[in-house]
């Protein structure tokens, strides 16, 4: 895919506010922009209103491992129904303060994606209207997709 247009967007973003873009990566036809967590909501709003990224395709977390710093990533996959290009925004979070502003106010689609990320990684989306567990039961202990969570859980498996 041609990434020329995406770089144009990123350059414009940089010109608007230099703080917004911490890092830009172009690999395998995909552009990844690392955004400081304080400005993610602002960047998303600008991308949606000015650059026609009107659809949030996906939000997913990732754990780099307990000894890494920053430990968590949250990836936002933006899509445009107008020019059909994709952009990935990345926010890096530390284990001590895994908080990031929500983007539910910008795309309603973020609702369940953010709940899933919270459920699996324990990332807290500040301002989310209904941040509950979604896939795992509400009394589940821990966050299953963290690297230090064992594959078979802490307790022996039982059907009763």
């Amino acid at each position, binding site marked *: 895919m041609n990434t020329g247009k995406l770089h144009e967007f990123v350059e414009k973003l940089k010109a608007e506010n230099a703080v917004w873009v911490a890092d830009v990566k172009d690999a395998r036809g995909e552009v990844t922009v690392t955004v400081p967590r304080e400005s993610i909501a602002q960047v998303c709003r600008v991308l949606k209103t000015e650059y026609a990224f009107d659809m949030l*395709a996906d939000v997913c977390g*990732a*754990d780099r491992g307990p000894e890494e710093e920053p430990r968590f990533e949250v990836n936002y*996959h933006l899509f445009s*129904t107008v020019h059909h290009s994709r952009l990935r925004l990345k926010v890096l979070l530390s284990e001590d303060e895994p908080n990031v502003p929500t983007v539910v106010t910008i795309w*309603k689609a973020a609702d369940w994606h953010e709940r899933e990320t919270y459920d699996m990684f324990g990332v807290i989306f500040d301002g989310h209207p209904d941040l509950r567990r979604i896939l795992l039961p509400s009394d589940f202990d821990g966050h*299953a*997709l963290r690297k230090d969570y064992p594959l078979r859980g802490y307790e022996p498996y039982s059907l009763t």
Partner: protein
Amino acid sequence: MSIAVENIPSKFEVLDQALESQMTLSMGPQHPSTHGVLRLELQLDGELVIKTVPDIGYLHTGMEKLFEYKKYQQGIVITDRMDYLNPLGNNLAYVMAAEKLLDLEIPERAQVIRVMFCELQRIASHMVWLGTHALDIGAMSPFFYAFRQREKILNLIEAASGGRMTPSYFRIGGLMMDLPAGFERRCKQFLEDFPAALDQFETLVTGNTIWQSRTKGIGVITAEEAIDWGLTGPCLRGSGVSLDLRRDNPYSGYETYDFEVPVEPDGDVWARFRVRMRELYESYKIVRQALERLKPGPIKADAPKIVLPDRDDMRKHMDSLIHHFLIVAEGFNVPEGEVYHAIEASKGELGVYMKSNGGPKPDRVHFRGPSFVNLAALPVMSEGEMVADVVAIIGSLDIVLGEIDR
């Protein structure tokens, strides 16, 4: 034993109370029309739905965690079990993400076979949708006719891969094996009969007045809302947005096929129904074109360290045997990086986020299931409708809980 008669409210009093106050109804998780283990918490005023809260997770099996403990080629088997009505679509999304990381080039014949099977699978998936959707609304006979067509496709998939519901036919770098002898004839036979079957569905379902009155104007979602909620696939095209990743972000050579993207403007259950019915014909067209294009050629990429060698090669060549042993025992290393690959599955955009740290097992695999996102928009469509219509709306979303809960 006596009961104080004055303490029991009269039958009519109970009825009056129910009409005046709201009640909460737990629909599911074992309700037949919720298509699996989905629970809806419906707040009702009489029969009017005031609030819908979907409750999911009953089928959660921790697939995304499991991927991190399996080698890349072992992950394909897990994807079969996600959207179990569209396993080949899941295979394709996963395999293509890995191929993107590995930078593999897939030979022409493998691409054509992939496209052909994905479209056959789309028809099979839509057949289940049509059958169960009609069954939910009260038409029983289309179910049998639809499943008869689906059975023919499953037989074709079985002939090629050995599995009906869990084919794992697409592999990283190509296909598991070539098509069996006589496959083209059997596929042609299916294609010859299919347009007549489509006409049959149109007369059975589309022209039915009860069907029309149960679906028209029900569960409306506007184009802006649909995009905001991230709807994709037939649900989005039913709201008048012309978006199809096969045309707009083409992969596997879809740009070379001649097909149309059906769009209906109304955004109701009927519009989503019409989009899928018209899509069936487009898929049929693509399968026919793919079948014409089938030319003999390799079905695996030229990457001996990634793709398993043919059995015949292993008997003759020492290095093939070594590669086979190494791939099975240790897997192959995938270069560091991350990709997001999205395909147009039968239910919408199926995206795979795959992150590699350079080893033989992925660091993170995340699936963006179309059913997951489409179901999130159920409250918007169902609030303000009748309880009986919620069943019709769920049917029109075409959800599979295996993919939602993963």
